[in-house]
């Protein structure tokens, strides 16, 4: 689960991570008020779930409260386009007003999962403000890494290695050690899957703060953090995905024209691949789960058919433990309740696949049956050619 910068900073602050003083404004008038309260130079930052905001005009430095009001007026309501939003951009609804800082250095700090070692790893670099992937591919020697042994946690010597490795001195080191420990604690206790402070800044008076903060939570651990549910911003999500999540469906909208409904995530990805190989583009990822019950199929149809780009639907179910004839009956039951006006191809493989094909062919539905994976993909692409 992704959250906004202002939410991330509020959480980090609770754990003792230093962040600039700031306020969230939903109107330009509020922005002006908060800027005046902070005094002097402030930064106006558009709050959307995407990086690269500065280049798109979503981060501006205001010399005074009037300027802050003017920037907020520009930003609130605008469609901010960055390299992470796609060409349509994302609508800005809120801005963060933060105190301006006298910055000496911009660094990078992150905690991520090293999947190969099965360990968390602290990553730090002197190249603040640059995407870490870019640093990793161009100058990997500039990335410091400290793997964490979870049985003991982040050790002081590791924090020192990072701080001195970044070239910090005197007071800066003290602040950095406190920062690293607080960030680690926040990560562990909030079940983060990623935390990125880019840039981590050192101010002229020796302080170390998170100028930006991006954290994501592990969806699997959300049962331990019921209070995080309110951090979700549905405006940042695709409306159809929000709708699908109400039905408990695992759905991701894409830009193609062939809707697909599949049981199992791997087979769903493979089905999308097949649609592409057969010459079209998938409209979505949708995993209806192993059982593919009549109810999930019905909800799946509702979501797929709400996507105006969808010109055809491919259902690909591998019935293993669950028998295909039962799945077929569910599909027929679900479909007969609905007004389906696009071609549908159904492929059921596994136990009682033949009976299932017969049931579908003898039903009142105009569904086509694909006898195998290849045939199903070819039929669905032919149906819209």
């Amino acid at each position: 689960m992704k959250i906004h910068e202002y939410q991330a900073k509020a959480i980090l602050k609770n754990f003792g991570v230093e962040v600039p003083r700031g306020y969230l404004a939903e109107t330009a008038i509020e922005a002006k008020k908060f800027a005046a309260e902070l005094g002097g130079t402030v930064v106006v930052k558009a709050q959307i779930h995407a990086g690269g905001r500065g280049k798109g005009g979503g981060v501006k430095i205001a010399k005074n409260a009037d300027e802050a009001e003017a920037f907020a007026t520009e930003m609130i309501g605008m469609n901010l386009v960055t390299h992470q939003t796609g060409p349509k951009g994302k609508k800005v609804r809120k801005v963060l007003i933060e105190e301006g800082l006298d910055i000496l250095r911009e660094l990078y700090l992150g905690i991520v999962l090293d999947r190969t070692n099965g360990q968390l790893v602290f990553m730090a670099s002197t190249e603040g403000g640059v995407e870490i992937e870019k640093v990793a591919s161009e100058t990997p020697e500039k990335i410091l890494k400290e793997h964490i042994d979870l049985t003991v946690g982040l050790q002081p010597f590791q924090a020192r290695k990072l701080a001195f490795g970044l070239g910090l001195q005197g007071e800066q080191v003290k602040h950095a050690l406190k920062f690293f420990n607080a960030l680690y604690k926040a990560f562990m206790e909030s079940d983060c899957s990623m935390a990125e402070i880019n840039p981590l800044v050192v101010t002229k008076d020796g302080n170390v703060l998170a100028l930006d903060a991006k954290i994501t939570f592990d969806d699997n651990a959300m049962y331990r953090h019921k209070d995080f549910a309110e951090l979700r911003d549905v405006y940042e999500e695709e409306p159809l995905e929000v709708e699908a999540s109400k039905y408990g469906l695992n759905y991701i909208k894409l830009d193609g024209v062939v809707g697909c409904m599949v049981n199992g995530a791997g087979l769903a990805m493979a089905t999308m691949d097949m649609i592409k190989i057969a010459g079209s583009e998938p409209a979505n990822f949708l995993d209806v789960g192993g059982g593919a019950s009549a109810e999930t199929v019905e909800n799946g149809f509702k979501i797929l058919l709400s996507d105006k780009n969808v010109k055809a639907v491919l259902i690909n179910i591998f019935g293993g433990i669950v028998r295909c004839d039962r799945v077929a009956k569910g599909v027929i039951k679900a479909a007969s309740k609905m007004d389906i006006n696009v071609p549908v191809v159904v492929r059921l493989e596994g136990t009682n696949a033949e009976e299932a094909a017969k049931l579908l062919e003898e039903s009142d539905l105009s569904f086509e049956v694909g006898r195998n994976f290849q045939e199903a993909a070819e039929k669905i692409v032919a149906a819209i050619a």
Partner: protein
Amino acid sequence: MSILVDENTRLVVQGITGSEGSFHTRQMIEYGTNVIAGVTPGKGGQKFDDKVPVFNTLDEAVRETGANASAIFVPPPFAADAIMESANAGIALVVCITEGIPTLDMVKVHAYLKDRNTRLIGPNCPGVISPGKCKIGIMPGFIHQPGKVGLISRSGTLTYEAVKQLSDLGIGQSTCIGIGGDPIIGTTFTDALKIFKDDTDTEAVVMIGEIGGTAEQEAAAYINENLDKPVVAYVAGRTAPPGRRMGHAGAIISGSEGTATEKTEILRNAGVHVAETPAEIGATMQKALS
């Protein structure tokens, strides 16, 4: 021969009285798996279906029955604990079916297993099967047939698809391993390939990968340097957008790392026979064997 599980496997099921656990225990017994014990804390002393003794702890189950493998069907909040309990009791093979275990729980499990002689398969996987001998997991047994091709996969139903394609062509399997779709798993492609390498009855291996992480790339390096047996691979998710979790917690392209195209190319360069479509996994193996 086969690897990991066979006629000598003595299975204890953790969560045997739950709805998933009981359903799949019956399926496993029906397939011929030697299910000799179950564990559900608080239900010790009962008998599952009047035949399988249920114990309160793994230790007790191992002591009383000599179990050497476990299958885990407990809900996500308790699954990491169940894995560690098995490892602590000296179980050699732990197969964790549970989907949705918090990642930080698995980081702890990973550290816990480091110095123990326990192999973990999964979590978030369909399990392991040596056709005709033993099945630990939730896969449909009937699609398999005994033979000489090993299979390793991060997926569930896509694995069944591949197995069905193999069996339909008369290509049997030695052992099929669902290694799981999570970011942290007990047994990786490379780990499984190493075991298949030493199995004299496995002549070739199918690998089904997907987007996210670098496990396929690491496997490619291993195959290139160490494996003489033919390997057929398919990597799912070439149409997956970056930054989105495609069902499996581990199936996510981060930055530009972990795309299907990149993985496929690296595997191809390592001499792996790449199936051009997911419908041609069986046919590609048939060609590789001829």
